[in-house]
């Protein structure tokens, strides 16, 4: 019994904790690599060198295609609940940016947002039918990326729906956002290495993912929060986008299609300065509007069981409008 001394027990306990954490991290990584059920999965080697995995759920023949882009630290999984609520007539494309889930980053250059936009453009070209209208939607940072991508392929995109999007000037515009981002900076810098060594097990995910509680994808989202790839890719994107936004980013592109913003109620209520930025997004297109999703926050607007259906319905309406817009020669001429 003399073997069970305090130092030995501590060493053994720490080794056991480390093993449990690493085991959890590996399990989470393995489970989150599984493809989405009900979707065809495709692999695309992009010009950047990145190998992107995208998922397509075909709708009716000749139906419009909705391409969905996730935000920072999010993957295609975040879109599953909304996709479930979308009419089956619409073709839905989900994809993961390089580094997230099964998409591999092989680009040799330093990261910049243009790389993600370039990859997205190639996903749009590969995943949608040029003969039918394509609408882009993106959440948070993904909103900004789809807006930039829409300017790159105007001949393919017929509408843009931004879900509580990041605006390149939001840190300059709002002190609350700036201070929030500074706090997030610490989290981002520590998280990837912490998670690599199994600290994902110590993370209070119930609090972080409270908005997704009750969702059939809640467990998958919890596991994603424990994977190194999500935090590592998020850190790479954050390291570029944080100073980019502190500098005010770059002016929004002008689009010749409708731009609609679905805003979270809490964003509009707690950060009134955001309304100006959303209005700027809407004004960058030919028409569009700001729609506030009731009882939603930045996360629940897309992953909350009570909000995802409303968000999906609003997206479906915008897709239908884009189709109408596409088939109306007078409006097309006006947009041109």
């Amino acid at each position, binding site marked *: *019994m003399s073997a*069970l001394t305090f130092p030995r027990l501590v060493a053994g306990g*720490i080794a056991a904790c480390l093993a449990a954490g690493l085991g959890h991290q590996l399990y989470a990584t393995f489970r989150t690599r599984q493809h989405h059920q009900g979707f065809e999965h495709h692999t695309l080697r992009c010009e950047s060198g990145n190998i992107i995995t995208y998922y397509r759920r075909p709708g009716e023949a000749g139906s419009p295609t909705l391409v969905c882009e996730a935000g920072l630290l999010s993957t295609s999984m975040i879109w599953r609940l909304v996709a479930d609520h979308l009419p089956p007539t619409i073709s839905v494309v989900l994809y993961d940016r390089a580094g997230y889930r099964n998409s591999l980053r092989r680009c040799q250059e330093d990261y910049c947002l243009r790389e993600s936009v370039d990859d997205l453009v190639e996903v749009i070209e590969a995943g949608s039918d040029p003969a039918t209208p394509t609408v882009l939607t993106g959440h948070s940072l993904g909103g900004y990326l789809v807006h930039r991508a829409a300017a790159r392929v105007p001949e393919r995109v017929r509408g843009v729906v931004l879900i509580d999007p990041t605006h390149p000037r939001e840190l300059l515009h709002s002190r609350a956002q700036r201070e929030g981002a500074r706090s997030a*900076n610490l989290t981002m810098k520590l998280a990837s290495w912490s998670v690599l060594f199994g600290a994902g097990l*110590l993370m209070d995910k119930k609090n972080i993912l409270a908005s997704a509680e009750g969702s059939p994808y809640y467990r998958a989202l919890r596991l994603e929060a424990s994977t190194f790839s999500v935090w590592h890719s998020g850190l790479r994107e954050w390291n570029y986008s944080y100073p980019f936004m502190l500098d005010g980013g770059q002016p929004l592109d002008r689009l010749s299609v409708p731009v609609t913003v679905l805003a979270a109620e809490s964003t509009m209520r707690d950060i009134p300065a955001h309304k100006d930025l959303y209005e700027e997004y809407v004004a960058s297109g030919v028409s569009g509007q700001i729609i506030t999703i009731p009882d939603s926050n930045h996360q629940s607007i897309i992953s909350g069981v009570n909000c995802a259906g409303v968000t999906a319905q609003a997206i479906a309406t915008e897709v239908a409008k884009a189709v109408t817009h596409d088939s109306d020669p007078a409006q097309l001429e006006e947009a041109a």
Partner: protein
Amino acid sequence: MNRSLVKKTLEIAVPAILAGWFIASALGQHPDRSYDKVRKLDRTNTGILIPNWRFFAPNPAVDDHHFLYRLATEDRSKHTEWREAYSIAPRRFIHAFWFPGRRIEKAIFDVASTLMNNPGASTPLHEEAKRSAYRLINEFVRQRITPEPGYPLFQVMLVRYTGYDHSEDPKYDMVFDYEKVNP
């Protein structure tokens, strides 16, 4: 139960409990509060059983306080540029062991905090504390002013700045009333 059995049980249980407690405390030291799952095992809700290094500073200071001043003409129509009254010393390894200059910086921080914390508090005690803080800061700056002819007044501004993260803008917190350079 005989004595030797009790002794043996204690020999195992005591180090095991202490080791478990030590490990729980070690796991509760992550700087990011998102990783506080282990600390939630402490049902006292005080953080005493599984302490964290943030115990005495739940929101650690991340800014230095700086006092800037500018000189003004008698009619306050002309001003000099804002100047720094005291520079915060860049940190070196030796400062972990010997850093007597830190006393001034700590005093600046504490006196500035007196003005910044509880701005709405208006009890006689708070009012007196604030008046003292204003007098102390004005005197501190006055001792360090480089006077210029034609500029008999000065004004102090309280600024917070990280000093390490240059991507952050300074935060301009407070501008004081004008004071005489030579009272």
